[in-house]
């Protein structure tokens, strides 16, 4: 690890005849007020409501089995559970794909299973444009599926130069993310060599951008729009070279634990997740972005947990044949198969096989809660510009595409860590009666101090801000 204060990085750069990083001017000179940041963490295949929902409502709720890793002395002050909220805007409620399309957009699903509107991470990123090198970042863990109805792969949607909205793939190769985020940070070589290499990289991009612009003017309007978009993205890449230029926080260039890891090999699932979380936290500390997603698997995950780590013991024996392809008496670690085993979703079910499969799903969810806790603790280690920690000014939203394996989209298990610098209540369980999940995003935008977040998502599906969550 190679921590660099803002001062030392600027000193590195100060002797060089470099163009000023474009962000330098945009930041307040004295960033005593810390920026607010959001992470959307997605895990697939739902939860077990009764083992997720805190037993008591209101402040300082009793921890539930699944939320236990988040109910530690360190993290409980940041923990919020929102229950009784539905995700029904997709028009395809009761399906994994509907949940994927709508979980961050609160929009309807198109016939190709994409979302008919932008996702909250993209909307927030757009509103914070110019504040950081990246408007948003999408980190993935085992997400490489095609962007179609069977792939179930995307949750982030951005406006497309072609019109409408298009999905954004959450990159699941840590080496690629590392190169995107930190390859530009000097980690050796003389100042002059670094400056020269940046200059050369800029010159190629500058030349190419001009080629796109030149060609665009010679084409019809539709093609022109796409080449212009390409040029704009190239230009912003050029402007990111030489960044991060940390905004006063301690910016730590993480080392990549295993740069040659095969991200498609399920055995590396955990290791990839750890690297992605390291980089996500560092990208917040370096102020590379203020909005990110962390997506674990595609929707309706086909993961077999034994291929990840057999010692986790995430396997269950079906008490009866399931309708999705597990035989009676068959033992499997296939996640989706297990998610269809319970007949009753009551952990106190009289049927021992129900109890067993619910126990396994609960332990899977607890495992993810543990990942969430480790992400939060990573953020807590970084001091923020206001003297608090990055976590203090961050909100992590944990979402999924179905409430439970029976595909319900009602009473979703929304877990939050953080309170956006005190703009939101935390250490609380707020129980609603059928509000829609667009209201969560309206509340977040509002709590970040942004206007225009009276509602979010598909018309008729968002009532407005969750007032009792605001502090």
């Amino acid at each position: 690890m190679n921590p660099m204060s803002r001062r030392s990085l600027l000193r590195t750069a100060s002797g060089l005849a470099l163009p000023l990083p474009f962000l330098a001017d945009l930041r307040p000179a004295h960033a005593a007020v810390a920026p607010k940041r959001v992470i959307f963490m997605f895990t697939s295949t739902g939860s077990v409501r009764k083992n997720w929902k805190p037993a008591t409502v209101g402040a300082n709720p009793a921890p539930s089995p699944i939320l236990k890793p988040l109910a530690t002395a360190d993290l409980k002050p940041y923990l919020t559970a929102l229950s009784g909220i539905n995700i029904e805007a997709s028009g395809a409620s009761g399906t994994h794909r509907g949940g994927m399309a709508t979980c961050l957009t609160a929009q309807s699903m198109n016939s190709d299973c994409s979302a008919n509107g932008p996702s909250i991470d993209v909307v927030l990123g757009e509103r914070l444009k110019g504040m950081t090198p990246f408007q948003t970042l999408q980190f993935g863990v085992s997400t490489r599926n095609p962007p179609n109805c069977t792939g179930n792969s995307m949750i982030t949607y951005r406006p497309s130069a072609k019109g409408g909205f298009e999905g954004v793939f959450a990159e699941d190769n840590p080496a690629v993310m590392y190169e995107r985020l930190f390859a530009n940070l000097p980690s050796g070589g003389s100042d002059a060599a670094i400056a020269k290499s940046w200059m050369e990289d800029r010159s190629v991009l500058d030349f190419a951008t001009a080629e796109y612009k030149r060609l665009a003017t010679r084409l019809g309007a539709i093609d022109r729009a796409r080449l212009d978009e390409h040029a704009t993205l190239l230009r912003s890449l050029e402007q990111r070279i030489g960044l991060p230029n940390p905004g006063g926080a301690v910016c730590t260039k993480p080392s990549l634990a295993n740069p040659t890891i095969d991200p498609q090999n399920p055995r590396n699932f955990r290791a990839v997740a750890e690297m992605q979380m390291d980089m996500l936290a560092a990208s917040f500390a370096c102020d590379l972005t203020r909005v990110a997603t962390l997506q674990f698997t595609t929707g309706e995950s086909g993961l077999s947990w034994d291929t990840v780590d057999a010692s986790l013991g995430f396997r269950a024996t079906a008490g009866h044949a399931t309708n999705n392809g597990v035989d009676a008496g068959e033992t499997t670690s296939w996640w989706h198969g297990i998610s269809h085993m319970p007949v009753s979703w009551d952990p106190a079910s009289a049927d021992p096989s129900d109890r067993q499969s619910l126990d396994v799903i609960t332990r899977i969810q607890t495992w993810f809660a543990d990942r969430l806790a480790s992400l939060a603790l990573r953020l807590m280690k970084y001091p923020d510009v206001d003297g608090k920690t990055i976590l203090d000014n961050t909100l992590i939203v944990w979402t999924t595409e179905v409430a439970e394996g029976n595909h319900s989209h009602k009473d979703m298990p929304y877990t939050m860590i953080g309170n956006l610098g005190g703009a939101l209540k935390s250490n609380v369980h707020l129980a609603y009666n059928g509000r829609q999940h667009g209201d969560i995003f309206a509340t977040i935008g509002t709590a970040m101090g942004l206007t225009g977040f009276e509602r979010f998502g598909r018309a008729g599906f968002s009532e407005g801000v969750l007032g009792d969550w605001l502090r």
Partner: protein
Amino acid sequence: MTVFRPASLIFVVTVLVGTNTGACTGQIEPVDSDDPARDVPDPGRTGGSRNTGTITPKEDECAPTLIPPAGLRRLTRRQYEQTVDDLLGGGAEISKGFAPEGGSTGFDSASDGVLLNDAVIEQYVRAARTLSGDAVKKLAGVVPCDPVAKGESGCARAIVEEFGRRAFRRSLTNEEVNRYTGFFAQTRMNASYVRSLELVLQAFLISPQFLYQIQGLDQTVSRDGWVALTPNELATRLSYFLWDTTPSDALLELAATGGLDTAEQVKGQAIAMLKAENGNRLIRHFFSEWLDLDRLPGLVRGTQFTASTGNTMRTEAETYFDTLIRGRNASWQELLTSQTGFANAERDPAHHLGFLTLPGILSLHAFPNDASPIHRGVFIREQLLCEPHIPPPANIDVMVPPPDSTTTARQQLETKTQEVSPCRSCHERINPPGFAFDGFDQLGKWRDTDRQGRPFDTSGMLIGTDKDGPFNNHRDLIERLSTSATASDCFVTQWFRYGMARLEEADECGLRALQNVFRESGGDVGALVLAIVTDVEFLNKRVEVSP
């Protein structure tokens, strides 16, 4: 403004902008070369039927303005991989890490299938850095030039001209040569000769002319919005369609010397390219994408199934189609019924016939431990009959009880889907073709009874086609499908989506013309491919008309 209108392509009816009268009759008229509405023919094209300011769709009602403007096509990952391999003799694996793609048509070729965002831009830049770094290490093999003998700027110019020609798939204009050599000179002030060349190659590899199939540059648009492809552009489109790679020097040379000026020439060239070794790419890629064969290695199908099982199934399916289509010139009907193309001698000809009984296809649409008639039925309705995807109504409980000693899987499904009114209207179409294949398990193996020892009821009623009627088993059903115009038309629709890179919805006239060609040819897949590459929409680019 002229639009390339080849002689043999006679589906032409002159329709003035703004007219939209008469019925879509399927009538085809020859080009009337005396039509006064037409512009002066381009003297460079000698096909004899070049056209026309008003391009002419294939059927009366089909105002050409209904055809949507063709979106710019970026190289797909497959095309990028192959192109880089041909251009630099290696480095193809670099695009394996590119972001997934796929558009509304279900094919990677869809012009709306390529996503554009920060990460996508960066993947090209990263790839260009790696590729150019590797290329300059073996520059003599890429573009040989001795800077001592010829001088640095002489070599830079030679490399710009030669590498640029291959990257842009055409000779660079003087202006372009000057820009790229100018960039070299500017870079050379602070960097070494080799490093400067490396940066020039990088610039080529992220340029729009390399990453996109640029067409219709500076063209005056005909008043109804068509631009003829230049010979180079046509060579490029042909090469990417048939071989998924950059046009060969020979093809570019052919184009430059008037060898692609008539439809007959284009057709002759396409025939030669299909016969060549690389011709299998079109067949492989079309069927892989249409039938989702790339998913096979990753399937969860019990302990007997591994990635290698899936790869074997994929190869078997690809070989089946290639052998039949390119090897035996088989028809669509034969693809559905052939018993001779199976790679595996274990397949029992009493049960296995046609591609619907390929183990790979049966495995793709199944549960991990059993057949899934619903998945198979949906596959047939959507992919073979081109019915739209309709998800179950919102908030409906889609869980079905498993079979038991008293109730078969079919009975459970029927109870669930056919007795409930919102389900029935779709499931009476979906279920029967799915049940027909119940004799094949999740690995595509034949079985005579279910696990309780009961025979399968594979009978049903096919509806929603021109060959509706009862069937007793999958053989009967396949027989109906193989003679069904609904299915044959849908097969053409899939090819249309693949070749034209768009959905057919906005204007179905071009599609219908191809469907007619296909039917009249007796379902000749080769003839269909040739009809696509000589179609007006393939030979020309549709652009938006400025008001």
